[in-house]
């Protein structure tokens, strides 16, 4: 797959996300960023692959682990960095922080820090797209933990009942905070979704951005042709702790070996040649975004009480 231009294109996008988050890690100890960060390192391929199949007018709802999806969908890096720094030029004027990024100008609607809450929002958005005859694909991303919540089931039922054209993407990294999937679920995610009559798909190579993009493009074309809900589960791997900049293998709930096995297939780890093609320019862009954030004004009393209604 290395020969394809799309490989390099997606590689660059994924590497950009990783470098942004590594930069966040490097600065987190300074407390200039005072926002709980849920890092996507290890999961970037899912974000860039999904977003490769979407246009800016297609709408994406995602979770609090949102940096990767925000950037992959085309959200401004400067605005994201300013948001993390709590500045007025942030993508949400400093009122959202890491967990509540939004960039509606490129179809990144928003995120929720309360797990599963945006799934039904996406169903409603897709319903609106259907009723208002919008030429628009709606996508919702959620983790494996979200499938345990009641509103997830309500959302699947409604979407299937009314044949809502929506792509459900379950980004399965096997863990909800520190609890593994087999400790939490009595069901198989896809088999269960299928009981609602929803067509299901599975992709285990969630490190492979080209594979994700190809699969997603096929799904998007299929939903455009025959509007209906479809569901894809993509396996992935979270390299860092649930929340924060560190690693947590000492916690004993998972092994470093399993993560290393995933890393051994991750192009962003093993393809040093392509990394070196892009790294320098990306680091310069990230440095610029940090400068942008640090030079953006702090919000004031006036901002505090704006945008409530």
């Amino acid at each position, binding site marked *: 797959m290395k020969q394809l231009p799309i490989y390099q294109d997606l590689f660059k996008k994924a590497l950009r996300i990783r470098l942004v988050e590594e930069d966040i890690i490097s600065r987190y100890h300074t407390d200039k960023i005072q926002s709980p960060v849920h890092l996507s390192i290890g999961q970037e391929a899912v974000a860039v692959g999904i977003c490769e199949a979407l246009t800016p007018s297609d*709408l994406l*709802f995602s979770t609090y682990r949102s940096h990767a999806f925000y950037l992959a969908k085309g959200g401004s890096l400067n605005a994201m960095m300013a948001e993390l720094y709590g500045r007025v030029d*942030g*993508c*949400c*004027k*400093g*009122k*959202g922080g890491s967990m*509540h990024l*939004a960039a*509606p100008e490129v179809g990144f*609607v*928003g995120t*929720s820090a*309360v797990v599963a*809450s*945006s*799934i*039904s*929002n*996406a*169903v*409603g*958005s*897709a*319903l*609106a*797209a259907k*009723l*208002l005859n*919008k030429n628009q694909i*709606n996508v919702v991303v959620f983790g494996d933990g979200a499938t345990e919540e*009641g*509103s997830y*089931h*309500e*959302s699947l*039922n*409604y979407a299937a*009942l009314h044949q809502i054209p929506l792509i459900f993407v379950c980004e399965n990294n096997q863990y909800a905070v520190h609890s593994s999937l087999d400790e939490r679920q009595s069901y198989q995610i896809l088999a269960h979704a299928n009981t609602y009559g929803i067509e299901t798909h599975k992709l285990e190579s969630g490190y492979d951005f080209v594979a994700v993009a190809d699969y997603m493009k096929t799904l998007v074309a299929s939903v455009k042709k025959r509007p209906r809900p479809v569901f894809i589960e993509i396996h992935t791997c979270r390299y860092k702790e649930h929340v924060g900049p560190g690693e947590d293998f000492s916690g004993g709930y998972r092994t470093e070996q399993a993560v290393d096995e995933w890393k051994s297939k991750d192009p962003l780890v093993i393809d040093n040649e392509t990394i070196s093609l892009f790294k320098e320019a990306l680091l310069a862009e990230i440095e610029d975004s940090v400068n942008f954030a640090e030079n953006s004004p702090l919000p004031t009393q006036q901002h505090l009480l*704006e*945008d*409530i*209604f």
Partner: protein
Amino acid sequence: MTTLSYVDSLAKAMHDALAENDNAVIFGQGVDDFKGTFGTTLGLPEKFGAYRVQDTPLCEEGMTGICVGAALNGLKPIHIHIRADFLFLALNQVLNMAAKYKYMFGGHHDVPIFIRAVIGRSWGQGAQHSQSPQAMLSHFPGLKVIMPATSQSILESYRYAINDFSGPVVSLEHRLLYGVNFDVEEDKLRTGENALTSYIVREGADVTIVATSIMVLEAIRAAKYLASYGISCEVIDLHSPTDIDESLIIESVRKTGKLMVADTSWINFGVSAEIARLMCQQGFGLLQKPMAAIGMAPSPCPTAKALEDLYYPNQEVMIAKILELVERNDIAIPNEKSMADVYKKFKGPF
């Protein structure tokens, strides 16, 4: 002036919402059935199409989330709960999502959803079919809460909330008001933000009664009774616990020196407490007597009629408290528990 029942004004408001907004959609359990949500959505599926008046699965949280997403993407959803208690299942979406969307995303999104929820009372509604959650809902910035007490109030506030207001609104409708007829002055319908705020429904000089929902009617009845003994009550319909006209209340108390709050819910941590805060902060020293408050007894709602009669505040209690405020002990307290004429008409099962 025309006469219009509360239920007919709701039906008219729902009809007008669909007729005036091509993108308005009514969701709710049973909105398209033969009862049409107590008669407020009857005929609408036939006229506007099944998709615009949509029966829903039993999924209060999911459906509220669907309304939020639909509102974000161009629809104007109206979501109906036949009991306000069922709205509790949706609080995650109402309070964590709808009320936060605009703010936490820095103003990117408006969430114009309108939620109707019915307060049950009488005929054994019991602990889980009778709650009146205005205080809880009003606590959270980002949400408007209204409690229409009359047909006029429905016509004006629903039109504003659905057609003009861009944020989430919850309307708490009182089931016992549904059968009551009201005078409607169409040429005097309030518009814009005025459609939400508090107003004086009866002027008076001796006591200020601030009331919500059906308690406005109870207050008017008490005021009429006391007027024949020379006691003049000013009745203020609070209407929207989130948009209280504070100066209206302060000025009224400046005139009367005496205040009673009559709410449809419990007194603690409620509307009464909020009005007491207002008086302490902005009207300190205006009260000539300690403020009075009436609401439900501090228990869950019982079903037995005998207990229910003790649980809800009634005319006896209201008038007795007003007489204490005005220091009169020469007036007989009427032997009428409450709006008995209305309640007698209410036969259930709903």
